[in-house]
């Protein structure tokens, strides 16, 4: 008998706490309709930046390619004799492998490789996870 009483009392005490939160604004968000604010440092997909003149800044130094722990960056580099610098003719990132560690962004000496605050990155096919240069250079 005493046992029943203590158990019920404990349940009631627990219920009191849950009841308290019943009237407080819920902490959850209705995801597809509402979105929470993403921190500017968020490590999302990668993109390459252009400089003020609209030229690409990346000079194909291959540092990002070498530092990536899962080898998901690949590029081809050529030398432009007129401008006397190197350019990439192709720059591909396989986001199916990328683990968003941020090491490539940290290592880029030209600071032209950055993360986007993009977190909704799902596709139906694996092929569309492989982004080529036209999608990365934005």
């Amino acid at each position, binding site marked *: 008998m005493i046992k029943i009483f203590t158990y019920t009392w*404990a349940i009631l005490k627990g219920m009191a*706490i849950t009841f308290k939160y019943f009237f407080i604004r819920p902490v959850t968000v209705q995801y597809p309709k509402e979105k929470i604010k993403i*921190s500017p440092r968020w*490590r999302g997909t990668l993109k390459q930046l252009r400089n003020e003149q609209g030229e690409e800044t990346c000079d194909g130094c291959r540092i990002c390619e070498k530092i990536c*722990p899962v080898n998901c960056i690949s590029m081809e580099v050529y030398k432009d004799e007129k401008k006397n610098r190197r350019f990439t003719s192709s720059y591909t990132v396989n986001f199916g492998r990328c*683990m968003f*560690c*941020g090491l490539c962004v940290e290592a880029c000496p030209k600071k032209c490789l950055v*993360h986007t605050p993009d977190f909704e990155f799902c596709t139906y096919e694996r092929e569309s996870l492989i982004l080529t240069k036209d999608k990365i250079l934005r």
Partner: protein
Amino acid sequence: MIEQLKNSGFEEMTLNMGPQHPSTHGVLHLLLKMDGEVITEARPDIGYLHRGMEKIAEKRTWGANIALSDRWDYIASMSNNFAAVLGPEKLMSITVPKRAEYIRVIMAELNRIASHLIFFGTYGIDIGAFTPFFYAFREREKILDLYESVCGARLTYNYFRIGGVSADLPEEFIPGVKAFINYFRPKLKEYDTLLSTNPIFMDRTVGVGAITKEEAIDWALSGPNIRASGVNFDLRKDDPYSVYSEFDFNIPTGKNGDCWDRYMVRMNEMKESARIVEQALEKLEPGDIMAKVAKVIRPPAGEIYTHVEAPKGELGVYCISDGSTMPYRYKVRGPSFVNLAILQKMLKGLRIADVVAVLGSIDIVLGEVDR
């Protein structure tokens, strides 16, 4: 009686629990030999999440290994980062700037709170109380938001670097942590009402799965599991790494080593962690966050074992360097793996209803068991 039953066609039954059982905390497979409701033999079968982390590490640079270390114990990645950087730092005799050390301690302790919150929530579910789970995750979310603002990731932080940390704290971080701790303290009392002192919960945990002091030492337990048995063993006090010797905190211990004690040790540890974070915030001063290290990390040849007190126990990394950019050997002592071993002894003689209570109270994470 049992003999009689056996003769009349009743026999021991082998029961497969997992790997898809919701309360095995991942992909643990338990082979239980049952005599009626009593367990006569229990054998954990692991390896479903094996990714060969130690072998992969031999083909990755020291820096990349920090990123991979996030995947051992994926709910307490900061502690893994901590263990991964200490070894090469010692080999290269790098002195980490004071500010970076305090930041590391803040991160590791917040991570301890986050990890124990997951334990609190999931243990509630294991026992049959569903509400604590939501509350625990609500609080954990706040910690993850703080992490996101610092390093840009919510689970795999990759925040520590050899010689410091990757980014300085943003402006809103320190007020954010202070606000969190003020918010979190009263919540712990609520948890006590919800679960810790709830007679139904206590009935299911007090006296269940007790580990004696000697057993705990024999099976090389560490972390809250050994402390619950009354052994005062905490690497933060016993072998202080980083700046832990500067802080004033207690090591909560239990007496009987049963499920409730293990649970309670973790709840009290959260309070102590909050205290450490507060002290570290006070000591935090502007300064460098990275020591001067070469871009390409080549620790001199040698071997070293470094360990940290992760939320689950002693997380150690034994690495051998041959002077190149990659480790020659990288051995990880995962606390969950070692703690899991005692399960086969504890479960013997218990009822099947207690399996989940015992398993939950050891608090394993399969990413670290299998690696």
